[in-house]
């Protein structure tokens, strides 16, 4: 029988791995900078190119500014794209033999995946914050209060964490660092663009809207909009509390499905 690792040991090993994964970002700050460039480009592009046109379609709760509507969505976009790092990091470790080394050590088995996903959520938190700062500089203002903003960030982090486990499964399945670069976009692209991130779903054809209204990225975005802009920013009939609960249920649901799948894939590495 496998010796049962104590929860304490698991926590300690996880923190060792978290530290190791984060150090890479500290030693190579360009990683974080470039990770922020892409969302900032999205931010500028959508705000200045499409903002004028889309701005008319957004609810008045956004204070008449498209950027106020856009930022909550972009937080979720960054969370989703950033989670792809989990897949990349794991395939890199796999191909370099680092995972082999870990698996040959008497460490807690759970620590490699937990350490990876926790480190990535911290890293994504940093990227999200950086983007928020840029947003603030070009005019974003929350319409509720600071607590709403903090709550919104928490929702984004919860989503980032749950998506990291989806990406862990993708990384452990695809295994090849080059192939995984494209593989991570497959679930993320449709989720992010067929959602309420950039435009209200009311403007979409009904078949697309049926998908957009019932998928996690929209749920997360709505929850943050409710928290940051107030109930007026939500589709008719939605409440802030209701949308936050829906969002958290999505995060929990994703974790319930994908943590066991990722753990199983990890155990089956050969």
């Amino acid at each position, binding site marked *: *029988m*496998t*010796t049962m*690792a104590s929860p304490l*040991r698991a926590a*300690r*090993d996880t923190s*060792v791995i978290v*530290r*190791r994964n984060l*150090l*890479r970002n500290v*030693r*190579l700050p360009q990683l974080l900078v470039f990770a922020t460039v892409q969302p900032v480009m999205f931010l500028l592009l959508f705000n200045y190119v499409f903002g004028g046109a889309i701005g008319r379609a957004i609810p008045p709760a956004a204070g008449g500014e498209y950027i106020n509507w856009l930022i909550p969505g972009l937080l979720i976009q960054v969370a989703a794209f950033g989670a792809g790092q989990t897949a990349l990091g794991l395939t890199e470790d796999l191909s*370099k*033999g*680092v995972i*082999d*080394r*870990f*698996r*040959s*050590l*008497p*460490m807690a*088995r759970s*620590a490699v995946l937990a350490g990876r996903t926790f480190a990535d959520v911290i890293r994504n938190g940093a990227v999200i914050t950086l983007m928020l700062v840029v947003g603030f500089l070009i005019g974003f203002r929350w319409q509720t209060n600071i607590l709403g903003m903090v709550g919104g960030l928490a929702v984004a982090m919860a989503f980032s964490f749950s998506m990291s486990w989806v990406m862990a499964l993708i990384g452990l399945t695809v295994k090849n660092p080059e192939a995984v670069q494209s593989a991570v976009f497959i679930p993320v692209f449709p989720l992010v663009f067929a959602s309420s991130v950039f435009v209200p779903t009311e403007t979409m054809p009904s078949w697309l809207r049926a998908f957009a209204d019932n998928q996690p990225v929209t749920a997360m975005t709505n929850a943050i909009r409710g928290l940051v802009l107030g109930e007026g920013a939500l589709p008719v009939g939605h409440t802030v509390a209701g949308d936050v609960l829906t969002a958290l249920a999505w995060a929990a649901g994703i974790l319930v499905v994908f943590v066991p799948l990722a753990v199983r894939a990890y155990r089956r590495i*050969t």
Partner: protein
Amino acid sequence: MSERPIVVAEGITKRFGDIVALDDVDLCIEPGMIYGLLGPNGAGKTTLIRVLTTLLRPEAGRAEVAGVDVLTDPQEARRHLGLAGQFAAVDDYLTGRENVEMVGRLYGLDAREAKRRTAEILERIGLADAADRTVRTYSGGMQRRLDLAASMVGEPQVLFLDEPTTGIDPKSRIDIWLLIQDLIARGTTILLTTQYLDEADRLADRLAVIDHGKVISEGTADELKDRLGGAVIEVSVGDDVRPQVLEALRSVCGEEPKIDPVNGSVTVAAPDGPRSLTRVVLALDEAGIVPDDIGLRKPTLDDVFLALTGHVAEEITVATEMSPGNRKRRGFAFGRSER
């Protein structure tokens, strides 16, 4: 050597689809020795190491490390083993010290003990000065040594080193040999794989020659050589008369001679030593053949390998600084193809 073996493998079989990577492999390693696993590319060396280090479950067989069954109690087995894989598994963006300390922590050492052992090991392997530089500034040989350091930090009883010197320069190769010898002096048992005959000859107390997943010969280097008889006859001839030379050697020595694919020379075990040689010379003379060179010599591991597998021996040149006067020495690597 009456102690209980520290590594045991019995009937290990591992398939990947149609490929039989390991075919009923048995292995028995006494504590405190360097055991060499010698074989060409694709022989199954890495696969066997992966089974013994709990990374891979075989379809059949059992294996034990330090008295612990690796298949039924892998987590306990991991406490007693260290692995340095075929490619250095070190983090580029951590310093050498951080790399080793991390592994120490994951062996379960507390922070202070991990620090202490790391400092001591880095000193011992000559990386103390580079300890606080990030690994991406290290040379290939330094990374290999660092990888070794990481595998040692848990002070495991058995170290598994998969081709520890492949792809590094001759100077670093010597450094690693010295390190391995130092470890043995400290009572560690080492299983190492290699494609280099001179490395196996120089380091390993015992050897298993493995090919197509099978152990085809096992023993000390001398035993393996002795199995070819005490001596071999080697004849260098041109292509035109080689068939007649083969015929003469076959009839005198009663065995199929081997052609060295690199230099085309023909070798065969000489059952009666010098008398066999005399007979061969007479036979060739009668046939009117004058070889470029002919002689009797002690068998090398090269001959052993060629006789056992018939594989191409790839020649590499290694400046062996341990040899007197830093003279050039030839080493041999096997392979059916370039990596």
